[in-house]
């Protein structure tokens, strides 16, 4: 499984769930909420990000609320992978449950805005095609790989329920 990303969007530390999924739009359908994703930090982000882009952040990505709309908004805007030095725990689980790979990468500082990336979550590598270098990231834990490969927790549960197995 390799994820080709046209462009990296680079943000700093402690990008919180309130800027990812602003309270003022939380009662709206998530597609509408997504249009306001990160507007308090970068008003151009939601209208500029494209399908197949990567989201790169520093420490503690997704600190704050349990709202699943935070990673879901990024996904709806086209983000295919999250790379960060560290993740807040609920956000991390939410992203993986939605089938959005979230990888811990200590060297994200070496990725610049707009770089093209090829990410291999199984091998734990991030190829920076623009900079022509390969960074290490932590491979996804084995117990989560199957779920991610199925497309997230719901798809995974569906498969299990269909096969008559116990979840």
């Amino acid at each position: 499984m390799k994820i080709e990303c046209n462009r990296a969007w680079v943000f700093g530390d402690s990008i919180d769930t309130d800027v990812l999924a602003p309270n003022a739009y939380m009662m709206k359908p998530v597609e509408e909420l997504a249009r306001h994703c990160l507007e308090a930090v970068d008003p151009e982000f939601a209208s500029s990000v494209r399908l197949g882009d990567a989201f790169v952040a520093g420490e503690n990505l997704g600190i704050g609320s349990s709202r699943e709309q935070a990673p879901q908004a990024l996904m709806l805007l086209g983000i295919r992978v999250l790379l960060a030095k560290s993740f807040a725990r609920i956000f991390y689980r939410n992203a993986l449950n939605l089938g959005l790979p979230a990888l811990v990468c200590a060297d994200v500082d070496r990725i610049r805005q707009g770089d093209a990336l090829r990410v291999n979550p199984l091998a734990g590598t991030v190829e920076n095609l623009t900079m022509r270098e390969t960074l290490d990231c932590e491979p996804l834990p084995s117990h989560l790989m199957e779920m991610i490969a199925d497309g997230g927790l719901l798809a995974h549960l569906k498969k299990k329920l269909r096969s008559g197995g116990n979840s």
Partner: protein
Amino acid sequence: MSMTLSEKIIARAADKGRVQPGEIVTCRVDLAMMHDSSGPRRVKPMLEQLGAKVWDPGRVVIITDHYVNESDPESLAIEDVTRKWARAHHISQFHEAQGICHIVLPECGYLRPGMFVVGGDSHSTTAGAFGCFMVGIGATEMAGVLVSGEIWVRVPSTIQVRGLGRLPDGVAAKDIMLMLCRLIGISGANYKVVEYTGTTVESLSMDERMVLTNMSAELGAKTGIIAPDEITLAATRSALSAATPWRGDDGANYERVIDFNANELAPQVAAPHSPENSAPVDAHADVKVDQAYIGACTGAKLADLKMAARILHGRKIARDAPLFIAPASLRIAEQAKQDGTLAALEAAGAKILPTGCGACIGLGPGSLGEGKVGIASTARNFKGRMGAPTSRTYLASPYTVAASAVTGRITDPREFV
């Protein structure tokens, strides 16, 4: 082999003799709590997609608190779908607009020491004050729990926070947590449990203990927990079973121990836009505030309202710094009415609001307009959380919020007690 309190609860829920940090185990869920924002509105289509039923309606509690005071079509639709879903799935433990979920859950007697609980909200950590291991989860994860009754967890290591001595007058549990946010950082306890011990914690009421576990979320923790004692047992009307004493073993392994001296703690204030930007109140003494807010699961229990009333007794709030107070539950509002607390607050000029999450999530009176500066007894001051993206929120104890409302500037409440 010795285990911490959290490890014991996880081991019990996972049907194992023992567990150790780092191990991944599957736990049976004793209770699952949802609110209106992350609950049925989100999980209904997921369960439909799976064609699955709720594993045990008797282990599900729904408490609406986010959009209960709103009247826009979207909010009304969310409340409607919540109601209908609860009925369709035979969830009889459904509490509509009775207060904030983390407060109503123990008020209704759902929590018992030793329970393994999940909640669809990050402040689900609050239940740790009752000796429960309760974690916040997202909606898809909740759908998984609803159909299976199970969840996987990586057994967390435990940080022990040990408080010695008594808090000085005018200093509250909130000040302990704002101090810890600075000391540990808002990701300092990520994936870990924070267990609060020591004579300081033993001396605190349940209302105050709940602030410690509630704001463990602001340390990034998986949860916060306090070993049950006589105060807990009185609150949960349960007896401590000799077979399962819910406390850590002697010699249990703590990743880190943090000691603090409560006698020397000053009131703390966290500046925008993070709870970890905290400092003793003096550091912000000249900051002018436009509004003050006492509310949320963190800061509007009966003890919090009484702190404010004590400061406001015989005083008036500043004309240019309105104080809004939203009691955390209907029961609290009723108790505060009975014992004269509400009258004292209103006499000082405070405006009492309906119960609910309210301005803490930027809804209704007390939320902040463009460029406004607020001081609040809530837990989070992220950019735009309480209203306009250009607004700024300072976090403090109910004492400090009330004192600041009197002067219109951030004020040390010890001058007023």
